[in-house]
């Protein structure tokens, strides 16, 4: 099993130092991604899912940010200890990234072709003509019609969905081992989202790229991912395979999330069961479990101590005192 492991993040902590206090944006992130697997990272805004991804890439702006502690083992290397040169090789080559808003991540004054070719020439050490051939091929692969013509268009000449296709083409042009996709379809309409999800599924099957898919949509997780990581207020609270997450979720926050979901296949008019209250202020986290304030199952200990990250069942990790006695320590 371990030789399949592509990425392992352990106890990652990233803080931001601002005038208004220290924001503990990631405060104990643990996750594993195996080769060719898709990991869904779910959580609400401010749960630290994007910060975790940026920390893995070491793209956190410093200052005000700082990776305080942790370990990010990617393909046998600790990225947190790697030199800036090594990182440059890894970014784009081994790990690529796509974002929610493709317009802001594309340079508006360069044609999409030039931008894809730049990545190819840089990372695959290809010549111009070769790079252009490859770029056209990539655009075709992501389903852009008339790729030979469109390659000379500027980003604003593409629709939102097409732009996201361009981003995917760019990200996949160097055959990365890991693709980090941060809310790639959130800005898109449902029918366009369906196109992109379909495309990502196809590409994953063909290329065997592992994907870390950050999303707030549990539907997307269910359809695309093999494993799921649930985050809350900077912590990873649950990590398991996708079927277990939906059939036997363990963390009270996960229960709450699943219950607040409006369901399409339920006909009787029923009330949603939201999680009461609000996430804690990341500058002023509680002494105990970050979720304790909103948790219906809290015990006295939950407000005094932080729960540990435990493997309750093989491959099912939870950070919650409800399982502390029976769980075994994960080291």
């Amino acid at each position, binding site marked *: 099993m371990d030789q399949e492991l592509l990425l392992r993040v352990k106890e990652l902590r990233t803080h931001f130092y*601002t*005038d*208004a206090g220290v*924001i503990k944006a990631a405060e104990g992130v643990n996750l594993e991604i195996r080769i060719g697997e898709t990991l869904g990272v779910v959580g609400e805004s401010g749960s630290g899912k994007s910060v975790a991804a940026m920390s893995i890439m070491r793209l956190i702006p410093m200052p005000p940010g700082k990776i305080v502690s942790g370990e990010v083992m990617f393909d046998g290397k600790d990225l947190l200890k790697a030199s800036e040169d090594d990182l440059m090789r890894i970014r784009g080559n081994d790990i690529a990234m796509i974002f929610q808003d493709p317009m802001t991540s594309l340079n508006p004054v360069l044609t999409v072709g030039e931008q894809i070719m730049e990545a190819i020439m840089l990372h695959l050490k290809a010549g111009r003509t070769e790079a252009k051939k490859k770029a056209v091929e990539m655009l075709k692969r992501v389903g852009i019609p008339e790729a030979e013509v469109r390659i000379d268009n500027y980003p604003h000449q593409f629709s939102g969905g097409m732009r996201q296709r361009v981003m995917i083409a760019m990200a996949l042009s160097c055959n990365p081992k890991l693709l980090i996709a941060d809310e790639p379809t959130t800005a898109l309409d449902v029918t366009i989202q369906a196109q992109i999800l379909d495309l990502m599924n196809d590409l994953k099957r063909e290329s065997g790229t592992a994907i870390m898919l950050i999303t707030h949509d549990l539907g997307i997780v269910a359809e695309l991912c093999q494993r799921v990581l649930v985050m809350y207020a900077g912590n990873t609270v649950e990590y398991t395979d996708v079927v277990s997450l939906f059939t036997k979720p363990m963390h009270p926050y996960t229960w709450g999330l699943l219950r607040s979901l409006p369901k399409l296949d339920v006909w009787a008019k029923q009330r949603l069961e939201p999680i009461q*209250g*609000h996430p804690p202020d990341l500058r002023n986290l509680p002494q105990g479990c970050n979720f304790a304030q909103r948790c219906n199952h809290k015990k006295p200990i939950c407000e005094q101590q932080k729960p540990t990250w435990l493997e309750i069942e093989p491959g099912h990790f939870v950070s919650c005192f409800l399982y502390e006695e029976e769980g075994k320590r994960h080291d």
Partner: protein
Amino acid sequence: MSTNSDADKTLELYETSSLFLEIWDRLKRNKRAILGLFLVIFLILVALFANVIAPYDPVQIALKDSLKEPNLAHLMGTDVLGRDIFSRIIYGARASLIVGVVATSISLVIGVIIGAFSGYYGGWLDSLMMRITDIFSAFPFFLLAIAIMTFLGPSLLNIFFALGIVGWTNYARLIRGQVILVKESKYIEAARSIGAKDRRIILRHILPNALAPVIVYTALNIGGVILAEAGLSFLGLGVRPPAPSWGSMLAEGKDFIFNASWLVVWPGVAIFLTVLGYNLLGEGLRNALDPRLNLRRIK
């Protein structure tokens, strides 16, 4: 969620505070703004009480005291005609302040009226007014002021007019842009949807949100106008001698810069501190006037 003591504090604030107090509350946390405010208040006090503070008559010629180095009798020395520089600097503050405030007010009034009409009504009125603004701003600011002053001749009244007339274009542009921006915001739509009348929308929703940059710009601009006045006076186009002005003091002292450097150093320091004061205050106001800015800095 907030704690109870926090709640009590805010409730108290709600009952006792005015908008002014809140702005002050935010301003006083900014050290540089407080330094600016201190400099500006100091300048105002000096200008107001010039006759009390100044040990000598600023225009009294005493040729036997010509070009005295700073000493106990003349803290900043004397100029070529034996006038006390310290006293002249103090009276110069009065001229600078009056020019700064009056000329800026003229610019402000013209600019706000033109800018607000342009922005609010738009259409051909906007096009016409903005073209006029363009024509005015096509001339270099200082050159236009020089031209006007040359034409009208040096006097305090003419300086007001010259600096006021050349300065309004920036206000007009600023206000117009702000009004257009604010007019399109969702909370204006929300105000319309609850049935608010135009007058209420303009006074309660558009203006408070449009004026902040203007207040900031005004503070910065007073510094700029004072500098311009010094420039005009330096060229002999400003305050009519022998009335003291920092600019004309610089001009008179420039020939002695190597043998009697105090002639230029003190007016230079005075101009520098004044402009610095207004700039720091302006910048501080910018932060204090926007309740969102503190939040934005965190993100």
